[in-house]
């Protein structure tokens, strides 16, 4: 099947070549370049549709693998490998489709930005990396593209680098995801060491295939849990980082500093979904370990309710959506843990459409309001921006789970599985659904209904966005509304395609779930309407919820002060560690100087004691005595003739006496 390798290459080359062009001189002809990059994405979309066609129609049962050598050692090698199976084909489609729409939207949104060529360069790079992640067959290839996505995210969040908040947000995002990535990297090490392969599918010898899984299950224990447990936990930590689950969720809301289309693509539809995708990909491993799926479910559920609670108290239009994304990702994890990859993927699928719709819609709103992002200063936009309003409402309704829209079907499935599996997460999920409907209603009412509460100047400029912005919205709205229909319990095309295991459908329970879902959605809706309809909420103090919840509302508005907590604990810890290390350095330097001083002292001692005192002393003493003797001897030279004569005489006499004695 050589042709599909070519399609794969084309799909990846399109965006990457666009990115490379962008680096080398796209700045000179930005408009042409934008067309080139859109062309690259369109190419990817065509290729993904090709994959869907091949997998869906021509070769329905297979998965297709290709690999080529990357690092060759003497007796082993690490290859780069790609696979296109239904899972990746679906993701490819979602990614390239949403990306295309985001690109088109961006060409209008970023029209007046002087660095727009750079923007499209980074965006193409990101899209290429995301597509690469999705079709990877090797955990290493996956990791490489995954990190490239992190880099792209860093570049895009910090795109308006002159804003200090943007720079800080980019840094935070990269650092937090990197902390998660370390877990994934460690998992890669351990997997490779034990099994000697990093390929997912390798004709029976891949990681996800029964032989290796059996091997991993038999590997040793550590701290009471199996090898496979720890490996999977580490990989999950990586997903937690990338998908913004608790405790690594702090970067996602800050990532809203980037341009809105970036938020739509990266932080709603694709990159954050990569964590979910990773879990789905590695599901055979997770299935084989006890307890981990439960952990995933719980993490997802807690994140969902936590983020939902914070979302109801936010006042920035994008922040609400960001926390909503975190919350929905939590729901996806619950779906994975309680049900399986098919449920998580289905929700990912629908979520991509309505969340990107909502983000792009908010972008349209922000564009119309000349940059205003605070919903307390919006209002009554329904009349001014009908198309945006319509699309937005559809998106919000889909998110809230209004029946027959896409979100309803995917969430319903997850509720069903959660109910069957774990009751407590199910309850948390119900609460989350209620909150979701509530905060979306709150947002829609405050933004689109009532009186405009902003400044006169902004009001003056209010207008519907150009068609370049609204057309993608409409397209997405259609999908947000209808996409769910391929996954209804009675006609589950989606599940079929992904080879989800067949389940017995317990019809009464299922209907109960649908009713529950509907009730929750409408309940939240009504609550929101009741609190916010026809109210003029200009500041946080005016907010009815504030009156209801008091300081708890403020606490939620401050995002439960998680950032402050991290700063106080981890930040402090790093600070202390750094200081301790510095003290150690200073200590070592002190030791150095001591050694140096010791040597210097030794030298001084040797100089003073040996040289000066001992050797010089002896020498001087010797010389001194010689001198004194010389002085004595010199006394014989006193210049007196008489003395000399007397000496001569006595000498002669003594000599004569000696001669006479000896003789």
């Amino acid at each position, binding site marked *: 099947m050589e042709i599909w390798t070519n399609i794969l290459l084309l799909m990846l080359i399109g965006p990457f070549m666009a990115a490379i062009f962008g680096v080398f001189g796209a700045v000179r002809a930005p408009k042409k370049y934008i067309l080139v990059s859109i062309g690259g994405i369109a190419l990817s979309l065509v290729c993904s549709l090709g994959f869907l066609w091949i997998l869906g129609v021509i070769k329905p049962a297979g998965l297709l693998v290709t690999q080529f050598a990357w690092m060759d050692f003497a007796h082993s090698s690490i290859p780069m490998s790609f696979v296109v199976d239904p899972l990746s084909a679906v993701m490819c489609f979602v990614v390239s489709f949403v990306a295309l729409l985001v690109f088109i939207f961006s060409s209008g949104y970023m029209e007046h930005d002087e660095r727009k060529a750079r923007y499209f360069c980074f965006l193409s790079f990101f899209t290429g990396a995301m597509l690469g992640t999705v079709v990877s067959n090797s955990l290493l290839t996956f990791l490489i593209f995954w990190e490239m996505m992190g880099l792209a995210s860093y570049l895009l969040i910090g795109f308006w680098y002159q804003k200090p908040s943007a720079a800080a947000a980019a840094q935070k995002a990269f650092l937090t995801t990197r902390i998660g990535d370390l877990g994934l990297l460690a998992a890669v090490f351990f997997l490779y060491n034990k099994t000697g392969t990093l390929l997912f599918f390798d004709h029976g010898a891949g990681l996800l295939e029964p032989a290796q899984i059996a091997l991993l299950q038999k590997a040793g224990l550590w701290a009471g849990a199996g090898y496979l447990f720890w490996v999977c936990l580490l990989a999950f930590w990586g997903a937690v980082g990338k998908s913004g689950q608790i405790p690594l969720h702090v970067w996602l809301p800050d990532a809203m500093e980037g341009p809105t289309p970036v938020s739509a693509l990266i932080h709603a539809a694709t990159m954050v979904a990569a964590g979910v995708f990773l879990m789905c990909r590695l599901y055979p491993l997770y299935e084989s370990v006890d307890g981990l799926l439960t952990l995933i479910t719980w993490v997802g559920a807690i994140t969902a309710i936590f983020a939902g609670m914070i979302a109801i108290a936010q006042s920035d239009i994008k922040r609400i959506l960001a926390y909503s994304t975190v919350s929905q990702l939590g729901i996806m994890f619950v779906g994975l843990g309680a049900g399986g990859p098919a449920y998580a993927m289905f929700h990912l699928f629908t979520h991509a459409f309505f969340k990107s719709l909502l983000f792009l819609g908010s972008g349209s709103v922000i564009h119309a309001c000349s940059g205003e992002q605070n919903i307390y200063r919006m209002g009554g936009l329904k009349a001014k921006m009908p198309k945006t309003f319509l699309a937005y409402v559809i998106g919000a309704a889909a998110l809230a789970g209004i029946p027959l829209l896409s979100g309803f079907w995917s969430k319903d499935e997850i509720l069903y599985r959660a109910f069957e599996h774990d009751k407590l997460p199910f309850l948390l999920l119900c609460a989350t659904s209620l909150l979701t409907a509530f905060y979306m209603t709150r947002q829609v009412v405050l933004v689109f209904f009532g009186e405009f509460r902003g400044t006169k100047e902004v009001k003056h400029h209010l207008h519907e966005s150009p068609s370049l912005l609204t057309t993608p919205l409409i397209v997405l709205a259609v999908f947000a509304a209808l996409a769910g229909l391929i996954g209804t319990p009675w006609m589950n095309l989606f599940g079929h395609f992904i080879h989800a295991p067949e389940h017995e459908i317990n019809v009464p329970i299922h209907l109960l779930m649908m009713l529950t879902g509907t009730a929750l959605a409408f309940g939240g809706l009504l609550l929101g309407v009741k609190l916010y309809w026809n109210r003029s909420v200009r500041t946080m103090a005016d907010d009815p919820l504030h009156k209801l919840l008091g300081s708890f509302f403020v606490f939620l508005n401050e995002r439960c002060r998680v950032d402050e907590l991290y700063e106080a604990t981890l930040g402090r810890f790093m600070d202390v560690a750094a200081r301790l290390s510095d003290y150690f350095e200073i200590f070592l330097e002190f030791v150095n100087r001591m050694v140096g001083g010791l040597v210097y002292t030794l030298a001084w001692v040797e100089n003073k004691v040996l040289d000066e005192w001992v050797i010089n002393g002896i020498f001087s003493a010797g010389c001194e005595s010689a001198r004194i003797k010389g002085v004595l001897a010199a006394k014989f030279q*006193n*210049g*007196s003739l*008489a003395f000399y*004569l007397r000496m001569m*005489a006595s000498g002669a006499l003594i000599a004569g006496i000696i001669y006479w004695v000896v003789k």
Partner: protein
Amino acid sequence: MTLGFILIISAALFCIGLFGVLSRRNMIVILFSIELMFNAAHLNLIAFWRFGENPLAISGLMFVLFSLAISGAEAAIGLALILRLYRHYKSVETQSITELKG
């Protein structure tokens, strides 16, 4: 006129000369005291020649004549030196010439 008698006389002469050398301040006196010591030695030599084994051998007399000549020469040199010294130091006292000392 025994040998002993002449020896006593030459010994006395020698001692007088020695005394002069050792205790006189005047350099000329020292000089001729040295001459006196010389002559005492000569007398000793003559005595031993005349009262010895071969009183008529001419070598004894030659010996003394040589010695006399040399002592005369030496006295001349000594006087010349004293004259020079006198010209420089304006004195013939031994105490006034003490520059060469250590």
